[in-house]
C-alpha cells in the first residue's frame, strides 16, 4: 500500500516537471457555441433532458481535456544527432520517446522551433512540424527519425521540440516543449565550378604502386590469415580480444593544398567555402593527399574519412 502511494506520489511529481499547455481548437470553440445554443434551447423549452444533454456534453468536454493532458504527460524524449550533412540536405536526428504511463498515447505531432529567437507571441508559427507518431504503447518506447532541412552551414540545432496532440476529440490542442541541445554539423554545400587546383611546385612527386603500402597508418581491419604478425595491433587485441591488423596506405596521386588564396575570383565567402568543400570531396574521391589553407587556419595534408571530416568541419565552422 505504502509503495503504491509512493509510486503514485512519484508519478505526480515527475509529471510536474514538464508543463503541458492546452487551448481549445476552432472545433472546440464551435463545440462550446453548440453547447450554449443547446442550453438556451433547453431553457427556453423547459426541457429537462435537454439540460441533461447539454451538461453531459459540457462534461464530456471537460473529460476530453483530461484525456488530452494525459496523452502528453510522463513522456521521456531523447534526441540523438546523426551524421553530419551538407547544407541544403536534411539534418537527421533520432528521437526516442519513452511512454512512462500505463496508457497508450496517440497522434503525437513532433515539431521543432525553426528560429531560436522568435517572439513567444508568435508561438505557433515559429514551430515546424516534423513527424507524426500514431501511437506509443503503455510503458513502451518508440523511435523515429526527424529530418530538418538545413539552410546554413555550422552547427544545426533543433532548438526545442514541441510534442502536441489533438487527441482524443480534436476539441483541444495540447502541447509541451522539450528544450534540446542535440546538434548536427552542417558542412558547406559542395558546390563550385572551378577545377581542382594543380599540385604546387615542390610538392611530392607522383608515386606509383600499390594502394595499400607501408607509409601511413590508415586504420585497422579484421586480421586475415596469412598477414604478417607484426601488422597485428596487439594493443587492440588486449582491449577486446579481436585480432586486427594495422593497415597502411601509400598515397596515390598528388599532394594538394586547397587554398583560400586560389579563390580570388569568388567574392562571396560562402561561395568560397562551397568551392573548397567541393574540392575536398573531389580530392578525397580521387584519393589525393590534400591540405587546407584558410585565413588564420591551416590543415596539413592528409587523406581518409577522418581527414575529410576535419577539413569539412573546419570549413563548416569558419568565421570570416
Amino acid at each position, binding site marked *: 500500500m505504502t509503495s503504491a502511494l509512493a509510486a503514485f506520489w512519484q*508519478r505526480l511529481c515527475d509529471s510536474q516537471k514538464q508543463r503541458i499547455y492546452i487551448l481549445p481548437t476552432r472545433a472546440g470553440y464551435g463545440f462550446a457555441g453548440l453547447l450554449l445554443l443547446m442550453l438556451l434551447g433547453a431553457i427556453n423549452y423547459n426541457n*429537462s*433532458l435537454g439540460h441533461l444533454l447539454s451538461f*453531459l*456534453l459540457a462534461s464530456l468536454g471537460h473529460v476530453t481535456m483530461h484525456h488530452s493532458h*494525459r496523452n502528453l504527460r510522463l513522456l521521456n524524449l531523447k534526441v540523438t544527432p546523426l551524421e553530419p550533412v551538407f547544407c541544403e540536405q536534411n539534418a537527421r536526428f533520432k528521437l526516442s520517446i519513452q511512454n512512462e504511463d*500505463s496508457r*497508450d498515447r*496517440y497522434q503525437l505531432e513532433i515539431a521543432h522551433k525553426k528560429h531560436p529567437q522568435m517572439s513567444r507571441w508568435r508561438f505557433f508559427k515559429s514551430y515546424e512540424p516534423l513527424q507524426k507518431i500514431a501511437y506509443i504503447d*503503455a510503458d513502451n518506447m518508440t523511435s523515429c527519425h526527424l529530418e530538418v532541412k538545413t539552410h546554413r552551414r555550422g552547427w544545426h540545432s533543433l532548438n526545442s521540440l514541441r510534442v502536441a496532440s489533438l487527441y482524443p476529440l480534436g476539441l483541444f490542442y495540447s502541447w509541451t516543449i522539450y528544450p534540446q541541445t542535440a546538434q548536427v554539423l552542417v558542412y558547406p554545400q559542395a558546390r563550385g565550378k572551378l577545377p581542382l587546383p594543380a599540385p604546387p611546385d615542390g610538392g611530392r612527386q607522383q608515386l606509383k604502386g600499390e594502394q595499400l603500402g607501408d607509409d601511413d597508418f590508415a586504420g585497422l581491419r579484421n586480421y586475415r590469415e596469412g598477414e604478417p604478425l607484426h601488422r597485428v595491433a596487439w594493443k587492440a587485441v588486449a582491449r577486446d580480444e579481436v585480432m586486427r591488423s594495422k593497415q597502411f596506405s601509400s598515397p596515390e596521386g598528388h599532394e594538394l593544398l586547397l587554398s583560400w588564396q586560389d579563390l580570388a575570383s569568388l567574392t562571396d565567402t560562402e561561395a568560397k567555402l562551397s568551392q573548397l568543400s567541393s574540392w575536398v570531396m573531389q580530392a578525397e574521391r580521387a584519393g589525393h593527399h590534400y591540405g587546407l589553407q584558410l585565413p588564420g587556419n591551416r590543415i596539413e595534408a592528409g587523406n581518409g574519412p577522418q581527414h575529410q571530416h576535419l577539413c569539412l568541419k573546419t570549413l563548416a565552422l569558419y568565421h570570416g
Partner: protein
Amino acid sequence: MAKADTSPDHHAINQLIIALFIGALPHFVYQPFWVGLAFVLMISWRLLHSYRGWPLPAASRWLKVLHNGTAALMIVLIFGQFGLTIGRDAGAALLTIMLAFKVVEIRSLRDYYLSCFLGFFLVITNFFYSQSMLMVVLMMLVVVLLTSCLISVNSESSAMPIKWRLKLSVQMVLQAVPVMLILFVLFPRISGPIWGLPQDAGTATTTTMTEQITLGELPTQTGTTGMSEEIQMGKISQLIQSDEIAFRVEFENDALPPASARYWRGPVLWQTNGTVWSPLPEPERSQAAPQIGVRGEAYQYTMTLEPHNKRWLFALDLPTEKPAVVPAYMTSDAELHSQKRIKNRAQYSLESHTDYQLNPGGDPNLWAALQLPEGKHPRTRQMASEWIQASEGPEQYIDRVLQFFNQQNFVYSLSPPILQGDTVDQFLFETREGFCEHYAASFTILMRAAEIPARIVTGYQGGEVNPVDNVLTVRQRDAHAWGEVWLPERGWVRIDPTSAVSSQRVEEGMSNILPSERTSPRLIARNDALVEVWRDLQNNWNALNTAWDIWIVGYGPQIQKTFLSRLGMDNPDWRKMAVILTLLLALTGIVMLLLSYYRRAHPDPVVRLYSLFCHKLARLGLNKSEHEGPLDFAARAQNHLPQYQQQIESITRLYTQLRYRHASDALLSELELQIKQFQPRK
C-alpha cells in the same frame, strides 16, 4: 493550428452515417414522410459512393445542381408544410434534412466536425418530442457513436481499431456522468421561456379537462366568448378514452384516503343554458374567500400535475390551504386557481380534509346556484315541483332523487346515445343511458327546480395506487363530475348521483369498469395468472416512470428547490447553488486528475509484459480470449502474421518459461527487450 485539413476516410464517414441515422430515426415518425425519405436517399448516396464508387455532387456540375436543387426544394416543402415561422417541428425537419444533405458533400475535416456537432443538436431535438427513458437510451447510444466519430478522425485506424474507439468513447461518456449529475442538480434552473414559444412548443397533451361541460351535441354556432375550439373536446366521454396521466399524488406517511373519498376537485360549474355548463365569471368567484370548517385528520400530500395549459390546480376535496410554491389563490367556490397557466409540470404540497363544511353560513353566490334556463326542461321541472311538495325538507327530496336514479332503469354507459333537443328531459325520461356528466347535470337541474342551490363540480375521481411506490396516479380516464347542494347549517354538500347508478365506478375506480383489453394486452387478457404477472411488471415500470417523470423530466426551478431543501440546503437560491456548484466542480476536477495518476498494475512483471504483447496484437484485431491459452493464441497469431512468426514464437516461449517454470532476471529482461522491440504491422 498546424493541422492539415485532410478529408476523413470512408470508415469515419460510414460511422457518422450510422450515428446520424439512429439519431434521426425518431424523426421519421414525428415528421412528414418525405423528411425521412430525403434523409434515407441522401445517406444512401454517400454509402453508394463509399461502396460502389458512385460520384459525389462535387464530381460534376449536373450532380451539384441536382444536390443543391433538391435541397432548395426541401426548404420550400418545409415552408409549405409548416409556414414561415420556424418552430419546433419546422426546425427539427430542417435540421434532419440539411444534415443528410451535408453528409453527402463532406469533403474536409471541418465538414466532418460540423456534421458531428449538428448530430448532437439532432439528439436534443428528439427530446423536444419525447423525454421517455427509451428515448434517452437511444440518444445516449447516438452520443457514444458521435463521440467515437470524433475519435476516429483524431486517431489512425492502424493505431486504434474501431472496437477500441467505441470502448474509449463509452469510457469517456461514463467519465462525464459525475460532472453531468452535479450540473444537472445544482445548475440554477431558470423558468423558461426566455423568448416567445411557437405554437407547437407544448408537449403532446391533447386531451385535458376544459372549463365547460356540454351535454349532447354541441350546436355548431356556439362561438362562445373567449373560449378556444377545445370546447368541443370538453366532453368527459372523450377524456375517458385517454390513458394519459393527469397528475400523480404522493401522500405523506402513505396515509391514503379511502377509495370512496378520492374526489379530486377541479373547476366548479354554475351557469347553464340547458346544454352547456360553465363557471361563474371572474368577479363573482373571487369575491370572498370560502369559509371552511374541518374535522378529523388532515391528509398531507404532494401533487405533481402534468401541464394542461389551464389555470386550475387539482386538489383532494377539500383543500384547506393554498400551495406554497405555486402562486395561486382559492376562489369562493373552493377551486384552487394558479396565477399563471400550467405550461410545465408543476409540483405542489397541500393539506386536505375529507370531512369538512364549506360556507355553512351562506354563500354570496347562492342566487347563481338557483338559476335555470328559461323555458327549458319542462318535464323535469314538473317532476321536481311535485316531489318537493311531497317531501319534508331538502334531505328527503335528495334521497328521493337518488332513489329515482338507483331504482329506475338508469344505466351507466361510456358510450351513451347522443342527445338531441332538450337534453335533460330526454336523458331523464327517455334514453336513461349516460355517464357522470349526464347524472351530475340532470341532478343539478332537479335540485334547482326544487329551489335547492346546486352546482356541478368537475375533476377526477379515484386513481390507481401503485403498490411499489404508493404513488397514486390519476389519469384522464378518471375524469368525473358530481354535484354539490347547499343546505342551511351544513353548507355545500357533495352528492354524487353517479354512485347511485353505478357504485362500482366510485368505489373501485374507472379501471375496473374498463374492459380488460384497456389495461393489459389482448393476447394475455384471457389468462388470469398472466394478467397478474403483467400487472406486477406494469406496476414496477410505472413506479420507475413516475420517479423518472417527477425527478428527471420534471426537474425544473421548483423541483430543484424542493430537492435541494430535502438535501439540507437552507432556502436555496441561485447564489448558493452557484457557490456549491463551483466548489463541487473544482473538487471533482481535482479528484479526476489524481485518479488518473493511480495505476492498477498486475504485481507480476511477467504478466504485465505479456499483456503488453497481447495489447499490441489486439491493435491488429487479434484479441486473446479469456479461455485461450498462450500457446493456442500464439498459433493463431502466427497464422495471421506469418512475417512475425519467429518473434511471436520466441516471446511465447519466454513467457511460458518465466510464468510456469522458473523466473530469472536475465530471462525477464530478455522478454522485456523482445516485447518492446515487437512492433507488428499489417
